[in-house]
């Protein structure tokens, strides 16, 4: 726990530069975004299953409404939940404590980054609500659809607001990344070498490196697209187009340029979303299995490998665009290469549990769920990485199943695990309710598999993505309606499970049990008693767990002076 005098005025408390406050602010922003995104997807699923149904407030769900919800759902979930909560939220909350620092390197920059992110969120909400409609071109915003305002409802002001929101988000994210990198490199306590860092810190560190490099490219792409839309440039718009009967007065551009730029950002982005969760999973499995992470060095190297390779595979999103077969082969091989460090990690997680004296608790459950969902979602990666198969499966529900399982569900389970584990730090030293936590876990994992596993079958059957409604004139798609309805029901179970979480969250903030100093008997510096701040010296690696002699404890915290190991 860091000691810092809290400023008095409301303004300085709201615009606090204290990293724990900022971490909590990111957490709440992410929660609001997540609930919004979830409700949007609920409407989407209900409409697909029962297209004639008129919903309260919305009435009949028109195609533009569905597609707008689809666009904002993806955007909110990827940027404002999966980028925000694992990294900016829990990272800000816990990084200094875990490395033995009193604060982040640049507290004011940190606050600026948060409030820019919050502004970005407000602009995104405005894009959803503005007259003229919300953008309908998906979170991927492929031009010319996203470049020509007349190509659909919401492609005017709605798309402009989306681009502005994302632009602000890119800047904020880059500022935040600088903070993470400098803090990790320069502000570790004495004795905390890089190879003694908890794996959570490695996750944040590599994710921050990726963020810094990737978001700048997205920012550039967004600026170019805004320029095409308003300043007569033609980066992405070729000649000879007619939209709505009118000639489009642009020429010379290439829609594929956007795809290259976007996916050069977009692929590292999904690793930014998952790396902190992977670090946390290693951390929690070791803590609950009461065992060191087997081969810590391999886990660090595989984190770095995944980060590095993540920059080389963007073309696998473009196999059907008409790339040269040689480029296709190269991207395919590199994509399959990422499967190797990912497999190393998966084996490591299982090996951590294998001979463990595992204590069961909600954080463990969600970490196990993370591994399970990561395996299921991850294994379809090597499948989609093969162009011969992707040619059929691209832009079908098979891909939707893949990324929802591995990014949506595994990533979210990482967030839940972090919330239950670090709740004493998020709140004022309380614990979340264990019973409700377990109910949340079981309903969620059943709902997650029930919703997303059948989507593989939809994809195999040829159901394309982003259809606002299954077309009645296409027989083979109408035959899939029972499957669509099953998925919607499972999705409702999954969504309902989150109500348990919200109730538990709020109840525990107010009335949760007292956590005590180190409720999980973990080894990290964040659980040390606060009076030990002076003369902090780290003596050992992060996962000193062992078989106890009678009556003794089975772990040693990183800063305990007793015995020098690792």
């Amino acid at each position, binding site marked *: 726990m860091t000691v810092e005098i809290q400023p008095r005025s409301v303004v300085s408390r709201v615009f606090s530069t204290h990293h724990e406050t900022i971490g909590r602010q990111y957490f709440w922003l992410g929660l609001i975004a997540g609930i919004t995104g979830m409700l949007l997807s609920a409407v989407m699923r209900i409409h697909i299953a029962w297209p004639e149904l008129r919903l309260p407030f919305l009435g009949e769900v028109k*195609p*533009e409404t569905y*597609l707008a919800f689809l666009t904002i759902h993806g955007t909110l979930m990827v940027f404002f939940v999966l980028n925000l909560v694992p990294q900016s939220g829990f990272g800000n909350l816990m990084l200094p404590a875990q490395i033995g620092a009193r604060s982040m390197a640049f507290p004011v920059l940190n606050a600026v980054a948060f409030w820019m992110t919050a502004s970005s969120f407000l602009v995104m909400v405005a894009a959803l609500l503005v007259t003229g409609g919300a953008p309908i071109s998906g979170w991927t915003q492929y031009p*010319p659809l996203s470049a020509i305002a007349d*190509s659909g*409802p919401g492609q005017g002001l709605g798309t402009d607001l989306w681009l502005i929101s994302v632009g602000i988000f890119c800047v904020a994210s880059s500022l935040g990344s600088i903070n993470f990198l400098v803090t990790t490199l320069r502000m570790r306590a004495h004795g905390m070498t890089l190879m003694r860092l908890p794996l959570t810190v490695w996750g944040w560190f590599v994710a921050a490196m990726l963020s810094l490099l990737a978001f700048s490219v997205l920012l550039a792409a967004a600026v170019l697209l805004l320029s095409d839309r308003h300043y007569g440039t033609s980066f992405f718009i*070729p000649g*000879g*187009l*007619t*939209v*709505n009967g009118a*000639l489009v007065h642009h020429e010379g551009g290439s829609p*594929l340029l956007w795809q290259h730029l976007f996916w050069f950002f977009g692929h590292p982005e999904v690793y930014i979303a998952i790396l902190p969760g992977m670090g946390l999973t290693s951390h929690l499995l070791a803590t609950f299995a009461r065992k060191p992470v*087997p*081969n810590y060095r391999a886990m660090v190297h595989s984190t770095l490998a995944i980060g590095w390779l993540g920059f080389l595979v963007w073309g696998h999103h473009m196999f*059907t665009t*008409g790339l040269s*077969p040689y480029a296709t*082969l190269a991207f395919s*091989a590199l994509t*399959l290469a990422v499967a190797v460090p990912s*497999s*190393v990690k998966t084996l*490591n997680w299982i*090996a951590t549990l*294998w*001979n463990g004296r*595992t204590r*069961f608790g909600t954080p463990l459950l969600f970490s*196990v769920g993370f591994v*399970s969902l990561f*395996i*299921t979602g991850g*294994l*379809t990666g*090597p499948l989609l990485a*093969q*162009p*011969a*198969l992707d040619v*059929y499966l691209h*832009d*079908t529900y098979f891909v939707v199943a893949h990324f929802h399982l591995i990014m949506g569900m595994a990533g979210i389970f990482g967030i839940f695990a972090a919330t239950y584990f670090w709740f004493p730090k998020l709140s004022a030293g309380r614990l979340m309710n264990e019973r409700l936590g377990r109910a949340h876990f079981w309903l969620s*994992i059943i709902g997650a598999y029930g919703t997303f596993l059948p989507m*593989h*079958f939809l994809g195999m*059957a*040829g159901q*394309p993505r*982003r*259809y*606002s*409604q*299954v*077309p009645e004139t*296409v*027989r083979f798609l109408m035959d899939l309606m029972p499957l669509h309805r099953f998925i919607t029901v499972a999705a409702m179970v999954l969504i309902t499970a989150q109500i348990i979480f919200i109730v538990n969250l709020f109840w525990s903030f107010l009335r949760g049990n007292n956590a005590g100093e180190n409720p999980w008997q973990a080894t990290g510096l964040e659980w040390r008693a606060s009076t030990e701040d002076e003369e902090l010296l780290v003596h050992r690696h992060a996962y000193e767990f*062992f*078989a106890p002699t009678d009556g003794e404890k089975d772990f040693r915290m990183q800063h305990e002076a007793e015995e020098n190991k690792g």
Partner: protein
Amino acid sequence: MPLAFLLLFALLVLASVYYFGQHWAPVLAASSLFDPRLKMVLLVLGALFVVTQLALGISLWRARHRPVASSARPLRDWEWIWAGTAAVIFFGLNFAGALIFPVGTLLGPSPQKDSVRVEVTAEQFRWNFRYPGPDGRYGATKPSLRDAAEGNPLGLDRSDSAAADDIVTATLVIPTDRDVEITLRSHDVIHSFFVPSLRFKQDAVPGMDIFLHIRAERPGEYDLVCAELCGIGHNSMNAKVRVLPPDEFDRWLAEAGTR
């Protein structure tokens, strides 16, 4: 907890095996290596799925039911073996696929001399098909002349002599015994030419003329659906692909030319 996890996992495996059987891709109308290849990959990945999820479940079960364990054996050797195995499996799949992809890949003009040529033009929210007619040449088109209401969605320049015999249809009609060489275009935004029964998809990118060739083998009527988000009519942008035996196709083409 471990038992419940293993039960859930068993249910998933059974459901997957059953439903993958139920919901395979639509009837195959072309010779394609896709189906056997996908089956093989699903089996390999399915085996990995079973092994890893089982290991996860069993490791939890062992924690419940085993006495206190001693410290872990070093994992280093196992990790090299496992990483190596994973690399062999995944790269093996890749290179086997690469051998298939150029063979099965349908990008580029057809090597066959007597292939049927069709121009497929995608636009919001319709597919247009154009045959060059007996003169074998596509007539000139101009964006300014495009007018679907007037029956000229492609903007055919009537003053061009080559345009006179062009056949423009809303259904793609192709024969079984010959390659069909397609020039894929778009008038406005990115669309995607997806015929599940041919196991094939190619994006129609504005500003690009993409050449591909397909060959159907089973007469019948199949669906063409758009597979790239193109606006509010994305889901209604469907067309039919009619595959006819050779003499029926010749008759259709001759008759269509006289209209």
